[in-house]
């Protein structure tokens, strides 16, 4: 791995993205510890493809794909990208509303996204459009709800059995 | 008889090794080299056993044979046979000894080659072929093995076939040999036509009885000799041998110096009884001319292996010359001694090349490791190679106390006495002596340029080192064999040794029948007279002259080689370019062949194709009419029949259900009923 030759700072990458995609790249605060570059939900797949294939970016590796319950209305999907060739990083963030949590899949760009997106769907309820195998991954197929949401309530019965969850005594 | 069986075992062992090696070689540990080398050393031990037995018997007329039918075609029988006599035994020892040492040497030399096991398989195959050539007492068998050694030689020359030069050299050797073999084959056919047999005994019988004589015998002898010319690289078919040096150096040592190329000499020895005076003269002149001719070329070559190659041609010329002048034992003797010291020279040169090449590679220098101009001073880094090389050089130059002196002196004496009897052939000793002087000169030139002086490329000097033990051991063993004691008690006279006792000149029935006294003297008889001492003194003088001139030129620098070259520029250029023989061939024979094939191609394209196309056109027209007839008349009939059959078939199909079980049940019930009905 050749390092350091083409390392680009996050500002440079951000500028390059703005140049290529314009408005779909949202205004982002690049001053914090690990800045997140905001992306419009519909264009995430395109941007990802660009980031992976552009010769001086080459984000070949999707380190992590996280889903975040931001607040009452919104969810966020965060992509940690890393370039094995150039050893630079970028973090993309896509904010989507909770009631219509749909976002194009990036599993066509990085195949590792396949399982990560399934996990995000399973635990956070983000639907990935165009995903080849859109099923729950960790919870059983007939589980109700998405546990990592802040407003998640455990179902009382599962397959006719009470879920062993000690009810807190309110009074 | 037991010895003969042993000899056959010797013959078959390499074949076994070859078969195992070619199929399983890569899977064996160490890629199977131990198998081949081991087989060869067993061969050597067995050959030495045979040889010891021969020595103990000490019988010049010793000969056992074994015959069996090979092919029976109607009344015509083609037997094959093996014979073991003293010549064979000596040859067995020579071939197995040189082979075993060269095989051992190859382990070091070929280390790391990608086709290592294949190489040893080929070597083994060669040993098998060569031993067969020695053992057969039958022209047919000899011819078979003759071709097999040609094949293995071809395979080994072109062993590094990635190099164009190597593969071309292989082809060249093969094709040139074919020319000679064609002559040999015609000779064999003549022999067979006249005598009805290929067996040497049978031929001898008919020569002795006089049925096979005269000009046809001469022709047969010369034609057979043409084969020897090809294989032994005599003028004018010598062109392949220098090119054959493209093969691995051990191969050059084994095949193109010590064993295979002397097969021609061996063939002449085998057919010696049927040589008429005329054919012997032809042989003598070709041999003598080649000896001188090749020596002149060797004077000016710079490639170390090419010098040795031309030296080989020259030395074989010597042997042929000896046989042609009737010095039968001397020729054979030189064959044996030459095998050892020439193998040693080649292996030594291989060791040198190996070291130099390694040095160049390590020093990242792009230079020809075989060019003597790039060497020098190696004696300090490679003492074993140097000393053994010196011994061999001394031997080939004919310095006393060496084997080379014994054999070369015998040949020169033979030619001298021959010339004494027939003064009109004074050229033959002249050729011999001149070549001897030149030999001493160019061999010492080689030594001086290689081992003395300073290494030309000092950058690589640090990388030069002595070769591995597997390479130096054969050198030492062979160098020991260069001393006279193994061959004769006397350092000056070979006829006191076992060799001259065991190898006797056969009855030359053909000469006797020719009724000519012309060649009855000369050869062996001559050695006992005064010509022997003349020859001894003269050859000594000439050899030392050559050595001294060489020393002056290349060591002390008193004489400038460049000046010599400038003094006779045309001669130098001729010698340097090998007398333009190759160029002559390509201008005549090859050009003609290419032209003829171009003509044939044109003929095919323009005449034959045109005729064929016309024919096709006509066929198309005819078939159109045929088709119409077929469609309307024949098909109509056929379809009618088919429709009827289909209708009938439709009816029948309703009966059959397609279930074999039901048919079987029906069959059984019918069977039961029939039996009941019949028996009631």
């Amino acid at each position, binding site marked *: 791995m050749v390092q350091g030759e083409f390392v680009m700072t996050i500002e440079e990458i951000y500028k390059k993205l703005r140049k290529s995609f314009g408005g779909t790249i949202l205004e982002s605060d690049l001053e914090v*510890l690990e800045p997140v570059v905001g992306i419009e939900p519909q264009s995430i797949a395109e941007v990802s493809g660009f980031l992976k294939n552009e010769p001086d970016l080459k984000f070949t590796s999707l*380190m*992590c794909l996280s*889903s*975040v319950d931001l607040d009452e209305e919104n969810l966020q999907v965060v992509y940690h990208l890393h370039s*094995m060739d150039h050893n630079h990083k970028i973090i993309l963030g896509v904010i989507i509303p909770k009631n219509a949590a749909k976002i194009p899949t990036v599993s066509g760009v990085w195949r*590792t996204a396949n399982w990560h997106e399934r996990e995000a769907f399973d635990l956070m309820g983000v639907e990935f459009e165009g995903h080849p195998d859109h099923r729950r991954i960790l919870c059983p197929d007939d589980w109700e709800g998405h546990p990592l949401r802040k407003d998640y309530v455990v179902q009382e019965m599962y397959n006719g059995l009470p879920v062993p969850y000690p009810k807190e005594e309110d009074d | 008889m037991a010895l003969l069986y042993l000899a056959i075992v010797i013959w078959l062992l390499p074949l076994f090794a070859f078969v195992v090696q070619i199929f399983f070689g890569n899977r064996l540990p160490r890629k199977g080299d131990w198998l081949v080398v081991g087989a060869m050393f067993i061969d050597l031990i067995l050959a030495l056993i045979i040889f010891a037995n021969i020595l103990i018997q000490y019988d010049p007329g010793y000969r056992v044979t074994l015959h069996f039918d090979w092919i029976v075609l109607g009344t015509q029988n083609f037997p094959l046979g093996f014979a073991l006599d003293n010549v064979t035994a000596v040859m067995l020892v020579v071939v197995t000894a040189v082979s075993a040492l060269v095989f051992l040497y190859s382990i070091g030399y070929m280390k790391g080659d990608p086709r290592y096991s294949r190489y040893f398989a080929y070597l083994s195959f060669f040993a098998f072929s060569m031993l067969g050539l020695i053992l057969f007492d039958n022209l047919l068998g000899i011819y078979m093995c003759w071709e097999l050694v040609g094949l293995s030689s071809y395979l080994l020359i072109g062993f590094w076939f990635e190099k164009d030069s190597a593969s071309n050299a292989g082809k060249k050797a093969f094709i040139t040999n074919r020319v000679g073999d064609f002559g040999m084959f015609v000779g064999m056919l003549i022999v067979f036509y006249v005598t009805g047999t290929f067996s040497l005994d049978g031929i001898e019988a008919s020569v002795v009885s006089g049925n096979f004589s005269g000009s046809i015998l001469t022709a047969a002898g010369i034609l057979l000799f043409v084969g020897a010319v090809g294989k032994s690289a005599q003028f004018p078919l010598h062109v392949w041998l220098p090119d054959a040096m493209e093969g691995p150096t051990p191969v050059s040592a084994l095949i193109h110096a010590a064993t295979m190329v002397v097969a021609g000499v061996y063939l002449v020895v085998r057919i010696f009884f049927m040589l008429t005076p005329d054919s012997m003269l032809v042989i003598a002149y070709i041999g003598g001319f080649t000896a001188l001719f090749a020596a002149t070329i060797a004077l000016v070559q710079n490639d170390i292996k090419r010098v040795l190659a031309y030296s080989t041609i020259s030395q074989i010329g010597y042997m042929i010359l000896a046989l042609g002048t009737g010095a039968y034992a001397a020729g054979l003797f030189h064959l044996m001694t030459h095998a050892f010291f020439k193998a040693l020279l080649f292996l030594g040169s291989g060791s040198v090349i190996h070291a130099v090449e390694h040095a160049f590679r390590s020093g990242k220098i792009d230079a020809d490791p075989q060019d003597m101009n790039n060497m020098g001073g190696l004696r300090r880094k490679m003492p074993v190679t140097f000393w053994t090389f010196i011994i061999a050089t001394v031997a080939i130059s004919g310095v006393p106390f060496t084997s080379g002196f014994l054999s070369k002196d015998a040949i020169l004496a033979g030619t001298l006495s021959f010339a004494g009897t027939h003064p009109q052939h004074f050229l033959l000793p002249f050729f011999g002596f001149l070549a001897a002087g030149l030999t001493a000169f160019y061999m010492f030139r080689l030594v001086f340029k290689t081992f003395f002086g300073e290494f030309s490329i000092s950058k690589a000097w640090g990388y030069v080192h002595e070769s591995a033990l597997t390479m130096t051991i054969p050198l030492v063993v062979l160098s020991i064999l260069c001393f006279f004691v193994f061959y004769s008690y006397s350092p000056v006279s070979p006829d006191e040794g076992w060799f001259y006792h065991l190898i006797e000149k056969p009855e030359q029935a053909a000469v006797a029948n020719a009724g000519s006294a012309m060649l009855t003297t000369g050869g062996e008889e001559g050695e006992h007279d005064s010509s022997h001492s003349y020859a001894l003194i003269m050859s000594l003088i000439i050899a030392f002259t050559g050595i001294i001139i060489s020393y002056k030129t290349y060591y002390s620098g008193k004489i400038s080689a460049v000046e010599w070259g400038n003094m006779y520029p045309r001669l130098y250029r001729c010698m340097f370019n090998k007398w333009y023989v190759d160029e002559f061939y390509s201008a005549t024979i090859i050009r003609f062949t290419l032209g003829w094939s171009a003509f044939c191609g044109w003929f095919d394209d323009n005449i034959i194709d045109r005729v064929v196309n016309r024919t096709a056109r006509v066929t198309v027209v005819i078939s159109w009419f045929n088709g119409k007839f077929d469609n309307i008349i024949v098909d109509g009939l056929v379809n009618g029949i088919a429709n009827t059959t289909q209708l009938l078939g439709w009816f029948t199909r309703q009966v059959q259900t397609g279930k074999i079980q039901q048919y079987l049940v029906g069959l059984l019930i019918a069977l039961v009923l029939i039996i009941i009905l019949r028996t009631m």
Partner: protein
Amino acid sequence: MPEIKTDDVYIELGKHPKAGFATDDMILQMGPQHPSTHGVLRIECVTDGEIIKKATCHIGYLHRCFEKHAENVMWQGVIPFTDRMDYLASMGQNFSYVITVEKLMGIEVPERAEYMRVITAELQRIASHLMAYGTYGMDIGAFTPFLWAFREREYVLDLFEKLCGARLLYNYMWIGGVSHDVYDGFAEECMSFLDTFERVVFEEFNPILTYNKIFIERTANVGILSPELAIDYGITGPCLRGSGVDWDLRRDDPYSIYDRFDFEVITGKGEMGTVGDCWDRFMVRVLEMIESVKIIRQALQQMPEGPIMNEKIKKVIRVPAGRVYGRTEAPRGELGYYLISDGKGRGPNRLKARSPCFSNLSVLEEISRGCMLADLIAIIGSLDIVLGCVDR
């Protein structure tokens, strides 16, 4: 390995194959209780006789919703949960988490604690790779290496037990330092273990398994994972290096004090077959143990005296608001934590764990296609997954 055309692989169940001798496809449920799935993994194999046409992984049998737990406990309370993720390499899991929190807090860790962290993490790597070595031998059918590896692993666990009282789930690394200082004689015991261990690897482990002809036949050229595929699937750790990718976070993205040590990054070279086959992945682990030995030796020699905890750390930790992604090279690959703090809560607002085994396992379906049943076992073993890490 028999060649299977890609067309044949995606045959609908029950549909008749186009080529070959017609047998019905068999659906084989391997696991969740199976000796060599290394835990409760279920693989649904569509097989044609012994040949796997498709192997689909079903995971989640060990799912504990670690991330949900983390949202409900204090900052320090997460550490024991991380222990239980990759229970064979708990130190590495602790390490990654505390580094992430410290990064967000922006605090320094005392030198001595850094050295202790590196030493224990590398010892843990040895223990974990020993486990991988042993179980892989058992997958291939050799039982003895397993026990030999366990014998060595015992020494490591003994060291840990003496150090922090626990043998498996240590809770050793705390935010701002480590929980226990070394006891007297730790360095000597450690050194003596390292000396014997190096010899044992070369004189015992390699002859009985690594260079065993049958073992090589079974693992070389099996389950070939090309570098491109590996990166595409987010494979990390020894599996990635087994594919010949020269990538190690300890060297390429140094954290803690790893930039002070001299060690090599082992990559697969295709010594016995193709680069990226099972043997390469296996061999990378074996050699990495030796590299870990080197690191520990250096660390033991350099270790300074001093405190083991940052004094500024209070019982109740306040972490400023922010987001941070911290990653380390755990024994099984890149272990990353994406940590979000809102600056108010007692614990993380969101903690996403990016576990190496999760990504590593996802490639199984791709590389096991067309191999034989026995090869599937070999491939799973060579990926060296821990289901606690996959399912979290």
